[in-house]
């Protein structure tokens, strides 16, 4: 490692451990630090050119160096997180209840693990996988699905009566988790530097075709569920309940900061998010009735 790389690693390490970023996931930290370096270039540039930092390097190179180091740090943390998630938080047993796949649980785990590595290579899909990974790791999906089923209200009816899911609560949660993980396929196959809010069904079909090539042994029902979660419920009211929930939970955890103490006089994080999402439901293409029910669950449980 050169002196410059050492200095960059040291500087990035201190940025990474900054208390203001506490509670963020590795990908969130990476995104914030990249944006921070870009937006504060005017201030950072002269400081970085001082003899204490990188006097011999042009700013572009310094910026590149710092951002690369930060990405490496995120990758390092992501590897551990990914393994833990697949080992402890997801089971692929539900697939056998909804498809006739002959792959084993371990084979599915391997496929998803490889898929995640691929997804993380492209900035657009890398950014999008952040929400699903947080949602799975903090147990958001499990705790809401359990409440949804026990309440037997709108969401439960959509899942069991409309989508005809006859599987256990835990399996429904796993189905949503895998759907969420497959959502970034849309971003992976989208043009560079594009920001996708939601897509059309024609676009979804194209992504599905590409995805079949990338994930050869992944059942279509799962790929479709993941890709369709990017369809707007306002335009496509018949998209299945799992995709609608995957869309909500992914967005909910996109900017979630964990382990933060609730301020006095503030509504809880989940309740606040669902309340705000209700006001933006058209913009994000959410199912408003689902948001109402999820907000009630959050409110009743103090989440």
């Amino acid at each position: 490692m050169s002196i410059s790389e050492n200095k960059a690693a040291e500087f990035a390490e201190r940025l990474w451990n900054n208390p203001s970023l506490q509670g963020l996931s590795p990908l969130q930290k990476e995104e914030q630090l990249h944006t921070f370096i870009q937006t504060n270039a005017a201030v950072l540039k002269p400081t970085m050119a001082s003899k204490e930092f990188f006097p011999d390097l042009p700013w572009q190179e310094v910026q590149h160096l710092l951002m690369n180091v930060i990405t490496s740090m995120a990758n390092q943390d992501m590897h551990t997180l990914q393994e833990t998630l697949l080992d402890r938080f997801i089971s692929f047993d539900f697939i056998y209840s909804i498809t006739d796949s002959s792959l084993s649980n371990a084979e599915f785990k391997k496929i998803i693990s490889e898929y995640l590595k691929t997804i993380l290579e492209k900035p657009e899909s890398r950014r999008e996988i952040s929400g699903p990974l947080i949602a799975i790791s903090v147990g958001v999906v499990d705790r809401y699905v359990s409440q949804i089923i026990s309440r037997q209200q709108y969401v439960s009816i959509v899942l069991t009566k409309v989508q005809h899911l006859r599987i256990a609560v835990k399996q429904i949660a796993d189905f949503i988790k895998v759907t969420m993980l497959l959502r970034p396929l849309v971003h992976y196959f989208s043009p560079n530097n594009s920001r996708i809010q939601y897509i059309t069904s024609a676009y979804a079909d194209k992504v599905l075709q590409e995805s079949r090539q990338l994930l050869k042994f992944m059942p279509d029902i799962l790929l479709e569920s993941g890709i369709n979660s990017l369809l707007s419920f306002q335009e496509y009211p018949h998209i299945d309940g799992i995709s609608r929930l995957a869309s909500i939970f992914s967005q909910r955890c996109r900017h979630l900061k964990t382990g933060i103490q609730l301020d006095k006089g503030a509504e809880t994080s989940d309740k606040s998010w669902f309340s705000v999402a209700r006001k933006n439901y058209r913009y994000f293409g959410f199912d408003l009735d689902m948001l109402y029910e999820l907000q009630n669950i959050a409110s009743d449980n103090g989440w």
Partner: protein
Amino acid sequence: MKITRIAEGFITAAIILVLLQTLAEDILLITPTPWSIRQIFIFTGFGFDLLFTLEFLIRGWNAFNTGKLKKYFLYENGWVDFVASVPLLMLSSAPTLINHLQGISFAGAGALIGMLKIVKAVRIARVLRLLRLLRLFQRIRFANAGMVQRHTVRIVTIIATTFIVFNMILGTLFTFFHVSDAKSTLQNEQMGFAKYITLGWGTSAVSNEMLINIALTNLSTMRIDVDGETLYMRNSEDYFRKYFGPGDYVVYELDKYTIWFDVSPLAVSSAMANLTIFLSTLAVILMILIAYSPHFAVTVSDPAIIMMKGMKEKSYNHEVKVSKNFAEDEIFQLAHLYNEEYLPMKDRNNTENLDISLNDIQDILKS
């Protein structure tokens, strides 16, 4: 910086000690306590008043040198520092110490009434010591939000100062008007007794037996000497030495008669009034801390803090809890707009705010 912290800690400790001393001093006046113990407080009281006067002068001088005297005096409670130090030193502790050192007991028939009034006025000035409660209160950090701290301190200061200062002013004024109360009754009895002796002296109207009989009915008469011989003594010499100090009695001398009168009930009544004011002030402060301060936080500063964080931090998405009872308050109307308009807008455009700012990495950039 470290020296300033040590000095501030020292002053805070001194304030706590002087408040305890004020409380103990009054309690000891009410319960019969040997003079040897009470006189310790004369020295410590003077020491504290001197310390706080010096502190005020140093702070004032520093403020003057930096052109911030007005700010210190008016906005940083310099006036509380002043009122709780200089007048006390001049009116209370210094005269008491000097009297004690000189062993003065007030003498002379013409001076009796005037001296009693001065003793009373000086005792009333001790009420100002209670203002130090405010100084202690101002130093305690009891709320996270500076706004709550400042508003609560301001309210407590206004209420407590009004209470204490008006008590002192009215108390002082009352000493100069003829009001028939327990104190004046005591004073009248002593004056009547002295007048009787003055008028009857040298005539057959006053015999030693009569003096003793009258003294027995007048409980404030401690002792009567005639031509240097003790004619009457309410308690033993040792008892007087043990429990009485210079401010507890007055001596009336007229030719062959020397009469000691007990004025300690004045001090007891003054101590009880002081204790009442002290404990009432403490109760007001505690009630404001317990009842008002949280109310202010809930209805003003907490919503403001949440909205500020929501505007500063990217991932902060918490809505403000809008109290139904106070929904019409401007702050909650603002909070309503924040919940209904700002947060949804922020969510739609969540790329501008970052959780980290340049301020957060100043230490890294400087190292």
